[in-house]
């Protein structure tokens, strides 16, 4: 059974966002990392790039698959998780601690359109 954390918001494409004030930390869920298998590379945007809810901003690659990263929120990338460049396996180890981008949110209300932990759990049918 996949790990789902309370207090985060979830998208149907299996990204999460953790909101802290005007910032959101975006990554992939435990379910997503498990489905993908050993992550070998995370393709990340650059700081100052704009992301838009529902649009892809990068990709996660395993040996024989690649999955687009769809942003659950809109805003400006203020930080990318540089550690993933050298250690993509961190996404497998703990996907929630190892977020991928930090976004300055342009519309905090977007989170309301996402699922909470209970809804995501129901969505996964677990």
């Amino acid at each position: 059974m996949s790990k789902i954390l309370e207090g985060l918001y979830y998208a149907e494409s299996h990204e999460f966002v953790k909101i802290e004030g005007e910032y959101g930390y975006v990554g992939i869920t435990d379910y997503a990392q498990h489905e993908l298998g050993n992550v070998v590379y995370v393709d990340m945007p650059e700081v100052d790039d704009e992301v838009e809810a529902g649009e892809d901003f990068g990709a996660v690659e395993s040996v024989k698959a690649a999955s687009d990263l769809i942003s659950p929120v809109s805003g400006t990338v203020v930080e990318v998780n540089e550690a993933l460049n050298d250690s993509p396996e961190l996404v497998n180890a703990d996907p929630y601690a190892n977020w991928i981008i930090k976004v300055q949110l342009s519309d905090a209300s977007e989170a309301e359109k996402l699922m909470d932990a209970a809804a995501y759990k129901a969505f996964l049918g677990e």
Partner: protein
Amino acid sequence: MIRNYDKLIFELSKEGRVGYSLPKKEIDGYCMCCGLPDNLKRETTPELPEVTEFDVVRHYTNLSNKNFGVDTGFYPLGSCTMKYNPRINEEMAAHPAFTQLHPSLPVECAQGALEVYYNLAESLAEISGLAAFTLNPYAGAHGELAGLMIMRQYHMQRGDLKRTKVIVPDSAHGTNPASAAVCGLEIVEVKSTANGTVDVEDLKPLLDDTIAGIMMTNPNTLGIFETEIPEISRLVHECGGLLYYDGANLNAVLGKCRPGDMGFDIMHINLHKTFSTPHGGGGPGDGPVGVRAGLEQYLPNPQVKKDADGKFYLECDEKSSGYVSNFLGNFGVIMRAYTYILTLGRENVKMVGPLAVLNANYVKEALKGDYYLPIEGVCKHEFVFDGLVDKSTGVTTLDIAKRLLDYGYHAPTIYFPLLFHQSIMIEPTETESKETLDEFIAVMKKVAREAAENPDVVKSAPHSTPVRRLDETTAARFPKTTYKQMKG
């Protein structure tokens, strides 16, 4: 043969050894080392191996022993048409009257080569029911790209600039959408019906004046013939689009029906599949592109033409889609394919498709009790199983593929098409005998039995190959792609 040969050529190197000989110097007084300005010279010496000729011969011969080829065993690789590669093709490709020709030769000095090109193009046009062919593209994917350029050029020349989308079935080869993207086209996916063919009802609403065309292969990647192709052709043409035929599966219908007659406007052919030229471990191939009458002027430049006196010449058309290659494609591969057509002749070309289809159906019927066949009925040159019938063993398609290696077979194509989770795609081709197929069937059944009785031996396969399963995760996380990087 040395069983465990594992040296790299660099590891054989010893300073002072040489593997070449050159004639005595005849021209003195023109010294490169003093003539060339120092700031244009390289600062380091490239670390190439220093080995003798014999070192090289033995090294690569030993490496070849770690390889599987059509010459060494049955290769049931779906969608790849791994048929026998005749040696007379190789002999002709190495004909010294053709191998020493520089592409800048005046055409009157290369009439023989141009005739080979012209005749092969004409033969392909006859076989596929189209008007004209270029042999300039280098490979199947390159042919797709060249073909889509023709499609776009056709619309652009008509001033119809809004046609920027191309329809691709969800079962298509991965190259179709990739080629379309390189050609600047947006991809619209059309769904398959339950039996794997294009869903005409799903297609209809997609057709409007932004559609440049549709890419299809027939039979499709499931080995199913698209019987509704006349209707699809009518619908797409009515909306102003063109039909592109991905020739990857042409072997299925070779001699039996022709893409041009099905309504296709543009197509590519993989000479290294249908026309028996070797795959060479990944290339060189050649990807001729054909068009129906009325589209000839958009073929890539240069084009080989014949004048009233029977002389061949090169022409560059201003309306052409452009230049996709250095000159006239992989001429050596063209020599091979032409030799194959001459060998078959008109009487045998028409048997290729039927015998390939017979072989596929024979294997499919024999194995469908052990492997799950999602789509029943007569297949064409290939068919797809969705894993074992008995899914309880936990043995996956990958395991089956790897176990086949132990028994001396190449694996089928696996996990493609994407419509099923455990796809096993088998294409035997017409050059395999009933005895070979019977042995393969027996081994496939044996593997199915092993999966039930002793699944661990299948899951940990292969056991008897030069190397066993590889750590691909580390290879991708920390890529070491040269000897220098490997040494660290």
